[in-house]
């Protein structure tokens, strides 16, 4: 179980994450939702052990986040992080060097499914292909928790379907998946839980099918409700 206990992160002049307490259980795919700048990425980076909370603690199976938990928690950041000279095949080798749980077999299988040629240079990839590559490399790890930050951003419909497929192929009752996205509609059928982050604070966790069954409400409707009072840059 991934647990966030009153976690706060302050940067100079700004509180990026403000007292977030929540628990993520295995066997679920969670959506992490909120407008730009609400603190989703900062929270994920703390759970991945890349930055430290100012106060509070994130724990995985009762262990504070550390080098050790990094082996259990796979994280995909929004920014591209491969070198230009690399080929798709090199990315696999690079990952295999970094992560003991990386499976080349799984990587190859996903590349084939995603129609990605190992000989292609990273530099030459379209944004859709790049997105698929990043997700494939992350999901080829045999982790217990997968956190994907904006895996659907800036890619076409077909690439999105592929990314969703990779996420669903990895999901099982022992794994916890967390996906952040602005594209709430795309996640409707795939996630079963949704976490809302509003102005750096936790703003509720919902069972998505229960919203439909009990409130006749879609995830997108709920999103609009929760964020109805957040400024949209002057456009309502």
């Amino acid at each position, binding site marked *: 179980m991934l647990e966030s206990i009153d976690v706060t992160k302050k940067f100079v002049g700004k509180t990026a994450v403000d007292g977030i307490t929540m628990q993520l259980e295995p066997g679920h795919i969670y959506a992490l939702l909120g407008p730009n700048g609400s603190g989703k990425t900062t929270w994920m980076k703390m759970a991945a052990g890349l930055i430290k909370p100012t106060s509070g603690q994130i724990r995985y199976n009762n262990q504070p986040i550390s080098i050790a938990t990094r082996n259990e928690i796979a994280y995909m950041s929004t920014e591209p992080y491969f070198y230009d000279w690399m080929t798709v095949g090199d990315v696999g080798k690079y990952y295999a060097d970094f992560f003991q749980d990386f499976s080349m077999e799984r990587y190859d299988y996903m590349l084939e499914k995603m129609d990605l040629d190992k000989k292609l240079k990273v530099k030459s990839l379209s944004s859709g292909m790049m997105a698929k590559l990043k997700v494939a490399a992350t999901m080829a790890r045999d982790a217990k928790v997968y956190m994907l930050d904006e895996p659907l951003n800036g890619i076409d419909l077909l690439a999105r379907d592929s990314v969703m497929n990779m996420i*669903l192929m990895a999901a099982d009752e022992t794994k916890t998946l967390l996906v952040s996205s602005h594209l709430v509609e795309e996640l409707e059928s795939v996630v079963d839980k949704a976490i809302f982050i509003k102005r750096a604070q936790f703003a509720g966790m919902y069972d998505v*099918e229960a919203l*439909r069954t009990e409130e006749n409400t879609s995830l997108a409707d709920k999103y609009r409700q929760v964020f109805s009072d957040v400024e949209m840059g002057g456009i309502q």
Partner: protein
Amino acid sequence: MQYDSKIPIYLQVIKFLKTDIISGQIKCGQKLPSSRELAVTYTINPNTAARVYQELEREGVCYTKRGMGTFVTEDEGVITMLREQMAEEALDVFLKSMSELGISIDEAVELLKQREE
């Protein structure tokens, strides 16, 4: 796959599967994909997929053989009943729209006959 995001996804997938069973696209006694495969095929959460099979089992439309997977019932009676049930549901929807338009059942029948000709 396109879903109505206000209606529970499991109900929508159940409807797709039932329609395929009634139309014979999925045969009596045929083995169904595992719930994980179902999740990938229909782009749905694995828990939703598991629920789809739970509901279909509860309704007697399919059954689980231990260690072998989920199969469609061999009982043709169940499928005949399913067909009637789904036809009723489709009629309810149709009649509701007709009544919203102020069209009586007799008029609706008349319209249907005209359509046939």
